[in-house]
């Protein structure tokens, strides 16, 4: 199995809420960004990196979330939280496999504030 590289954006507000000990543990809540589907033929530095939204359904009993199709929203749009969810994960960034900040890439997303103020550059 070969590793794949993903462009992530650290969500400091969510990190402080979910993992107050992030300074000791090195675990941050990271939001994954995806390239715009119409920019597949462009190189990475010229790609628009948009937040990765998906449809989801939550089980009423176990509250387990099952993800559905990919949904494309502008970075400034916050979709309905009852239908759409953004891919994020709490990652241990002290482990191998972290590089950055990538100065050659320009995300369409500003410094994340729990995904509430996305502004297209």
């Amino acid at each position: 199995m070969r590793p794949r590289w993903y462009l992530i954006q650290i969500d400091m507000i969510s990190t402080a809420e979910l993992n107050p000990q992030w300074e000791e543990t090195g675990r941050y809540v990271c939001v994954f960004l995806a390239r715009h589907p119409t920019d597949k033929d462009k190189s990475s530095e010229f790609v628009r990196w948009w937040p990765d939204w998906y449809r989801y359904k939550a089980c009423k009993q176990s509250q387990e979330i099952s993800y559905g199709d990919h949904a494309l929203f502008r970075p400034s749009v916050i979709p309905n939280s009852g239908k759409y969810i953004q891919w994020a994960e709490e990652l241990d960034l002290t482990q191998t496999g972290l590089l950055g900040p990538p100065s050659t890439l320009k995300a369409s997303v500003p410094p994340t504030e729990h995904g509430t103020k996305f502004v297209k550059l």
Partner: protein
Amino acid sequence: MQKLDIPDSAIRKYKSADLYLLPPSLFPPEPLDMMDQRYLNYKNAPIVSPLRKPLGIEMYNEMYFHSKPPNTMSTTADLPSNTIDKIAFKVHDRSTTFAAPPNVTSIPDNTSHESTWQTPAVEQLLEPSHVSVIDLHNTVNVSTDKLFLRSIYTSWHNATSMVSYTN
């Protein structure tokens, strides 16, 4: 176009491209707007060439690809004419070894524009290593857009136990 043996036959008009006599395998690099090309990827059957029957063209392979190919050995063509050509005809030396990629011991700081050209991001993707918590925290604080590259081994879109949140 009219049949030669029937003077009163119907006169048919064809475009010059339709009268292209060479087989499709001998098309020019930029194909003409021929019948087969015109109806390519369509449900219509290709139109039979109007010259195939009058000219007795049965199979292009027999006409253009003879069983005994002509002798193409030439004493002048495709032969080296100078020293550069002789060097180019030699077997390439593949024994050249490349230097090992440099190990990245800390998160590189590429926030300035000048360092972008000195340390391109492509070279930094070779050997990532462990990062201390203090260095990581400082790098995250310095970063304005909080963007990083992360390598993950898991099958990302098949993961089901992923921590996630909604707004």
